[in-house]
């Protein structure tokens, strides 16, 4: 039996920073010292601290090694695994104290987190069903099938107060109740794993780190609404998640946890995967189902809602990955346990993907009602390089930004909507003073223009026009009237687009206008980009008094835009300047500045 477990993160973040090679080397080194019978190497899902990957945890003791390199492995094996001496130099600095090494759960990053959906991520081997069962997996399904009526299951979910984690925040229990309410010869349970927001990777991490929880929850949902078939619609761009789901499904079938007569209850349920080709609109529920049916992924009008006529025209229940990940724990611990966490109308926890200008880029799960300040300053470790916080963007291309004056608002569905943003699926991008808010709005419009499916006119043409207006502003060619016209167009699109994609596409513009109108005005009236991002409004200048004529800038300029003789002050030809900033970076005398 193994006396020590070495857990190495196999999430997408750590995989791209080299964890597969780490695992390989680790196994080799362990064999070299003859410990292969004593030490087990386990590949797990995401631990959350993606910025510090590859991550390795040694149990017992939970020693947390971060930024592990291949060449560090022999030392870790011979010192720690063989002789029991922690290699302090490689341990995550936050865990080192004067009294020795403290638990990871006491670090700033983990202290305020509460992991329910992510409870197994980074703890178990996602490709081993026995490890999932060891942490209580499939117990909820077993109990539901042997002790609950479908109505009792639905009531439990309603009582818990769980709301959809995919963006809209619709009460999950009610959705289940509606789907149960329609009679049909066949019903379907679907899982929306088409996570498309730029910068969001909550669902991917759950699928990669704990795929069985989604299967278990879908089977519970199938029992509750009376469905025998489930589909997981997952992006093909998530190869690790797809592969682990495949492994999980075949293991569950082998154990009889999917298939016929599960737990001898007479209940049959099976799950198949459907891969999406990466269209953002397929995250919209009706487009997703159209795509599963084998058609081009386009939305259709609602009603009828999926609960009545969904996939293949049959009653269908569709929930997001993170929503499902909460279900088994609600069954096992009771609805009161779940509803004791969070705020009045938003119960439980929410997973956020932290990105942008923040130290601890990664994945966090916090109780609803935690403030944005706690998330950014404490858990996220603040903003690098001493820069000032400007705004946080939530909800991706459908959401909006939250400025500094609202940092202390508790995060929940309703508060975020009141602030002009939304919970969305949980992407949280932090911006500092170097980010131009007009440029950010343009970035998201870039995305929606590209991703608009083209079925309805307000979205297809409206987002394109919006984007052109933003372009005009960032080039300094717009008038104040254009801003008003743009705002009017935003409301028009919101009211008239067919599906959620179009209806929410103007949100990034509206919310930046709401909080940062002065930046728009600066672009239009002063022809100036306050953050120094919009290239058309920038110019680089050389201070003749400071310039020593070293010619370094002239040599580095990719377009030969800098003219001047040796030991004489240089000048920049504004016509030729590409505004790349290379000269400013190179100048040793601080003579070049950006305006």
């Amino acid at each position, binding site marked *: 039996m193994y006396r020590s477990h070495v857990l190495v993160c196999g999430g997408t973040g750590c995989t791209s920073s080299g964890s597969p090679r780490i695992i390989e080397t680790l196994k080799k080194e362990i064999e070299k010292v003859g410990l292969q019978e*004593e030490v087990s190497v386990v590949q797990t899902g995401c631990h959350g601290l993606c910025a510090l990957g590859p991550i390795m945890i040694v149990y017992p003791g939970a020693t947390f090694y971060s930024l592990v390199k291949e060449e560090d492995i022999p030392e870790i094996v011979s010192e720690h695994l063989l002789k029991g001496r922690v290699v302090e130099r490689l341990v995550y600095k936050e865990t080192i104290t004067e009294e020795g090494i403290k638990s990871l759960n006491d670090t700033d990053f983990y202290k305020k987190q509460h992991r329910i959906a992510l409870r197994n991520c980074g703890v178990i081997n996602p490709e081993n069903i026995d490890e999932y069962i*060891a942490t209580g997996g499939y117990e909820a399904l*077993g109990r539901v099938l042997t002790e609950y009526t479908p109505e009792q299951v639905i009531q439990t979910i309603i009582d818990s107060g769980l709301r959809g984690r995919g963006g809209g925040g619709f009460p999950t229990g009610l959705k289940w109740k509606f789907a149960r309410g329609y009679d049909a010869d066949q019903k379907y349970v679907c899982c929306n794993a088409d996570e498309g927001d730029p910068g969001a990777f909550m669902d991917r991490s759950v699928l990669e780190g704990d795929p069985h929880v989604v299967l278990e929850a879908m089977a519970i949902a199938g029992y509750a609404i009376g469905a025998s078939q489930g589909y997981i619609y997952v992006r093909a761009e998530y190869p690790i998640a797809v592969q682990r789901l495949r492994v999980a499904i075949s293991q569950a079938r082998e154990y009889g946890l999917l298939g016929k007569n599960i737990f001898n209850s007479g209940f049959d349920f099976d799950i198949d995967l459907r891969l999406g080709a990466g269209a953002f609109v397929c995250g919209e529920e009706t487009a997703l189902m159209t795509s599963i049916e084998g058609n081009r992924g386009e939305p259709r009008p609602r009603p009828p809602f999926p609960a009545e006529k969904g996939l293949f025209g049959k009653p269908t229940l569709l929930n997001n990955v993170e929503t499902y990940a909460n279900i088994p724990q609600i069954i096992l611990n009771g609805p009161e346990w779940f509803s004791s966490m969070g705020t009045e109308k938003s119960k439980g926890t929410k997973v956020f993907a932290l990105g942008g200008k923040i130290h601890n880029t990664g994945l966090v799960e916090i109780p609803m009602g935690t403030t944005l300040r706690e998330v950014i300053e404490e858990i996220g470790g603040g903003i690098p390089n001493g820069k000032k916080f400007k705004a946080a963007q939530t909800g991706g291309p459908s959401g909006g930004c939250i400025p500094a004056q609202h940092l202390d608002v508790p995060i929940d569905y309703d508060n975020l909507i009141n602030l002009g943003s939304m919970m969305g699926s949980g992407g949280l991008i932090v911006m500092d003073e170097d980010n131009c808010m007009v440029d950010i709005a343009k970035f998201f419009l870039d995305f929606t223009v590209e991703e608009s499916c083209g079925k309805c006119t307000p979205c297809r043409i409206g987002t394109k026009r919006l984007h052109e207006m933003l372009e005009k502003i960032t080039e300094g060619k717009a008038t104040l009237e254009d801003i008003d016209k743009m705002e009017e167009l935003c409301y028009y699109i919101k009211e008239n687009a067919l599906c959620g994609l179009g209806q929410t596409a103007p949100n990034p513009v509206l919310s930046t206008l709401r909080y940062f109108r002065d930046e728009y005005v600066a672009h239009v009236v002063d022809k100036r980009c306050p953050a120094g991002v919009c290239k058309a409004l920038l110019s680089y200048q050389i201070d003749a008094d400071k310039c020593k004529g070293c010619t370094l800038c002239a040599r580095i300029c990719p377009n030969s835009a800098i003219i001047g003789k040796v030991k004489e002050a240089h000048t920049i030809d504004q016509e030729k300047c590409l505004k790349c900033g290379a000269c400013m970076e190179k100048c040793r005398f601080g003579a070049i500045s950006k305006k």
Partner: protein
Amino acid sequence: MKSLEELRAIRESMQGQIGLRSENSEQIRVVVGMATCGIASGARPVLTALSDAVLTKGLSNVTVTQTGCIGLCKYEPIVEVIEPGKEKVTYVKMTPEKALEVVDQHLIKGQVVKKYTIAEAIG
């Protein structure tokens, strides 16, 4: 899967494995000195014997772990038993057989095996 009992049986059999990964302040910690001196005088079989015994006897409240040189090289292999709220007990000159006795007497029944402790050895 035909019954909850079947599922729970798998869980029980896996618990010993997964239990290693839980951090609990209530746990009894059994620490084996595994520096060069310890290994040379036979700490490795002691460590293996302890880990195996804890697992097969289902002692989920016990964590077996290792440490470096404790400083009393001539008394190696050394095993320390650290129970929350109690004084640390240090066993010296351990063998796999003695270790099993410690598991049965100390870890299960709560009786310190005096004859193997450092106090006895030093006198």
